[in-house]
C-alpha cells in the first residue's frame, strides 16, 4: 500500500509543469489555511492559544511564500504552456485541502483536535513528497522546511489540546477523525452529484435546447445594438421578480 502511494506521489511530482502548478496551488491552500488560523486567533478567549495561533498563521503565510517562489521559479524554467487548469487537484490536496474549517463554529478543544489531525496528515504527506523529490533538491528543500514547521504545529496543537481539555482530549480527537471522514464522504458525494448533475444538464442541453437556441438566435438578430429604451412601467413596481 505504501509503495503504491509512493508510486502515485512519484508520478504526481515527476513532471516539472505539474510540480510547479501543484506548488502554486499549495501556496493558495497555505494562505487560506493561514487566514483560518488568524480567524481562530481572533475568536479565542485564551491568550496562550491566541499567541500560538498567530505564530502558526505567520508560519502558514511563510509557507505560502516559499511554495509560491519555488512554483514561480519552476514555471520560469518551462516553455510557455497551459497552467494546469485543475487537472490534478484531487491528487495534491495540500494541508487542509479536503477540510472545510468553520472556525467561528468551533470551540478551542475541537479546533485544536482538528488542527492536530490536519497537521499530522500534512507532516506525513510532506514527508512522502520529500522522499520522491530526490531529482529536484530545491523543491525538496522547501518541503523539508515546511515539514519542520508542521512538526511543531502538530506538537503544540496536541499539547494545547491536553491543556484545554485534559479529560476529553481523546474523545475530541475521535470526533475530529470522524468529522474528517464525514467531510471526505461529503466531498465525494458532492463531486459525484456534481458529475451526475453535469451529465444530466449536458444531455438536456443537447436534446432540449437546439430548437430554442435557433429561436434565440433569430430573436437576437432582430435586437438592435446600442441603446434600448426602458419602458416607463419598469421604473415602478417592486413586487415582481421578473
Amino acid at each position, binding site marked *: 500500500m505504501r509503495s503504491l502511494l509512493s508510486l502515485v506521489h512519484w508520478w504526481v511530482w515527476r513532471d516539472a509543469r505539474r510540480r510547479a502548478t501543484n506548488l502554486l496551488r499549495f501556496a493558495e491552500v497555505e494562505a487560506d489555511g493561514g487566514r483560518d488560523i488568524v480567524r481562530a486567533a481572533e475568536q479565542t478567549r485564551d*491568550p496562550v492559544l491566541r499567541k500560538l495561533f498567530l505564530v502558526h498563521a505567520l508560519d502558514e503565510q511563510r509557507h505560502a511564500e516559499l511554495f509560491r517562489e519555488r512554483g514561480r521559479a519552476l514555471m520560469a524554467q518551462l516553455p510557455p504552456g497551459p497552467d494546469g487548469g485543475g487537472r490534478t487537484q484531487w491528487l495534491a490536496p495540500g494541508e487542509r485541502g479536503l477540510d472545510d474549517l468553520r472556525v467561528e463554529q468551533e470551540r478551542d478543544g475541537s479546533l485544536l483536535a482538528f488542527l492536530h489531525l490536519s497537521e499530522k496528515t500534512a507532516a506525513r504527506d510532506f514527508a512522502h513528497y520529500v522522499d520522491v523529490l530526490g531529482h529536484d533538491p530545491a523543491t525538496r528543500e522547501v518541503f523539508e522546511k515546511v515539514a519542520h514547521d508542521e512538526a511543531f504545529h502538530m506538537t503544540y496543537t496536541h499539547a494545547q489540546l491536553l491543556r484545554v481539555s485534559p479529560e476529553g482530549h481523546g474523545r475530541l480527537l475521535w470526533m475530529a477523525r470522524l468529522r474528517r471522514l464525514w467531510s471526505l464522504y461529503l466531498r465525494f458525494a458532492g463531486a459525484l452529484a456534481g458529475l451526475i448533475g453535469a451529465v444530466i444538464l449536458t444531455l438536456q*442541453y443537447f436534446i432540449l435546447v437546439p430548437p430554442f437556441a435557433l429561436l434565440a438566435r433569430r430573436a437576437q438578430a432582430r435586437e438592435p445594438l*446600442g*441603446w*434600448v429604451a*426602458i419602458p416607463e412601467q*419598469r421604473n415602478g413596481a*417592486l413586487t*415582481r*421578480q421578473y
Partner: protein
Amino acid sequence: MKILGVSAHYHDAAAALVVDGLPVAAVQEERLSRRKNDAAFPMGAIEWCLDQAGLRPEDLDAVVFYERPMLKFDRILTSALRAFPHSRRAFAHAMKNTLGEKAWVRGLITAQLGVRRDKILFTEHHQSHAAAAFLTAPTRRAAILTTDGVGEWATTTVGRGERPADGPTRIILDREVRFPHSLGMFYSTFTAYLGFAINEGEYKVMGLAAYGRPSMVDQVRKVLRRTPDGAFALDLDYFEFHTSVTRSFSRRFVDLFGPPRLAHEPIDLETAEGRRFADIAASAQQVLEEVLVDLTRRLKRETGLPDLCLGGGVALNGVANTRILAESGFERLFVPSAPGDAGSALGAALYADRIHFGNPDRDIPDHPFWGPELDEADLARLAGEDGLPLQILDEPALIDLSVEDLAHGRVVGWMDGALEFGPRALGHRSILTAPHDLAMRDRLNRDIKYREEFRPFAPVVPIEAADRFFVLPPGGARLARFMSGVFPVRAEWRERLAAVTHVDGTARVQVLERDMAPRLHDLLLAYGRRSGVPVLLNTSFNLAGEPIVNRVVEGYSTFRRSGIDVLVAGRSRIVKRAVAQAAPREEVA
C-alpha cells in the same frame, strides 16, 4: 417604516437597514465573516443590522432584494441559448448555480428571516445602483449614469433623478445598453487577460495603466466599438465570458494583443513583456475613459443638469471619474462610498422607501460610516493578556503622540468609530504613515500589504489644505470625498509626497472635511504643524487577501502579524515592544 435592503450571490454581499427614511446600519458580509468578497446570503450582516436597531425580522415593513432573480435567470438562459453549441459547460454550470439556489430568492429570504412573502420586494439591479448614487447625494436633481458588469440584462443605464422639497421623489432610467455589451465586462476581460482576479484586480489594471503608453488603442477600439446612437458594443468574436465559465477572452483576442499574463508571473516593468502589459492596460483604460466621457457629455447635453450621479462598479475607476468631471460639462460628480453591488443593498432599501412606498424625501448624512462601532475595551483586554502596555489618552495627548509616531516614520494602525461601508478605508479603519519618501511605500508593500510595487498608495488631506498640494478642478474636492477621483499632485510637492505620488504624478486623494472624521482631521492638522505638510498616506487596514478589519481584535491580530508599529483604537494606544525600546529617529525634516 423599517426597510431592509439585501444584496448577495455574485460578489460582495451586504445588508442595509433604513428606518423612517434614514440609514441606520449598513455593512458588507465580508467584514463580519472575514471572507474577502463574501458573496453568500448575508445572514451575519442582516443580523447585525437588525440588532443595531433592536428589531426582529417580523418588525420589518419590507425586505428588498437588489435585483430581479427571474429576470436574471432569463438573461442567463437566453445567453446560453444564443451561444449554442459552445455554451454546454457554461449551461450546466449556470443552471446548477442558478436553479440550485440563486433563482429562488423569495423562498430563501422567507426561509432565512421568516418574513411574509408579500413583504419581499425586488428592485432592478441598475435601479439599486441609481438609487445608491442619487438618493445618498446632496443634490435635488441630477443626471444618473450607472454602469457595471451586468445585472439582469442592463449593463449601462442613463436617466434622471429628482427629489423636490414638495413632491414625490423620482428616479427615471430612460434607456439601457444590454448584455453582453458591457463596459464592466470589457474592463474585467482585460483584468483577466493581465492575470488578475476579476472583480478584485481592476484596481491593479488602473494602477498598471499609469506605467504604460496607450499604444494599442486602435486594437482596443476594435473590441469595444461605438454604435451610431452614441452607445457602445463589444465585438463578441474577441470575448468568451458570455459562453464560458472559465475564460473571458477568445483566441482572437490573444491574436490581437499577444499572449496573456499567467496569474503567478510577476510583472517586471523593466522587461519588454512587462511594458507590453502596461501598454495594454493603458490602452484599455484610455478607451474606457473615452467612452465614459462621451456618454456623459451626451447626457449633459440632453438633461442640461449641473450634477451627475455615477453608480455601478465602473464608478470605482477614479481616473475615469476625474476625466468625466473635467470633460463632460457636469459641474459636480457624485459617487457614493459603495458604488458597487454592496452599496446596492442601501440603494434598494432607499428606492423602496422613496419610490415604492412614496415616503417623503430626507437628506442622507453625507458619510460612509454605517458599520459596527469600535469597542475600545477589547484592546485593553488583549493588550493586558499579552503583556503589552496600553495607554488610554485624552484627545490632545493621543493626537500629539500619533504625530510623533508618524514623524518618526512609524506605521500606525488607526481605528476610530464606525466601520466604513464600501471598499475604501476613509479614516476609520486605516493604516496611516508619513507620505514623504519612497522607502515608506516600499516598506508598506513589502512588510504590510504584500502587494505589487506598481500599485499606488493614497493620501488624505484636510479640505482646507487640499488645493495647496493637489490640483483640484471645480468639483474635485467633492469627488475626492470618498476617494473617487485621481488628481495631479502639484509639481513642487511631488518629492515631499513621494510615497503617495503615482508614476504619472497623480494621487487618489481623499479630501477630508472635519465633520466626517474629526479625529483624523485633527491629526492631519497637527501633523501639518509638525512637518509642514498636513498630508498622510492612508491605506486600508488589512493584509493581502483579507477584508478590511472591523473589530478591535482583528486590528490587533493584523498589528501583531505585520510591520505595523502602533495601534490606535479610539483613545487607546499600544506599540510593539521593539518600537517602544528603539531610539527615536527623526524623519520629518
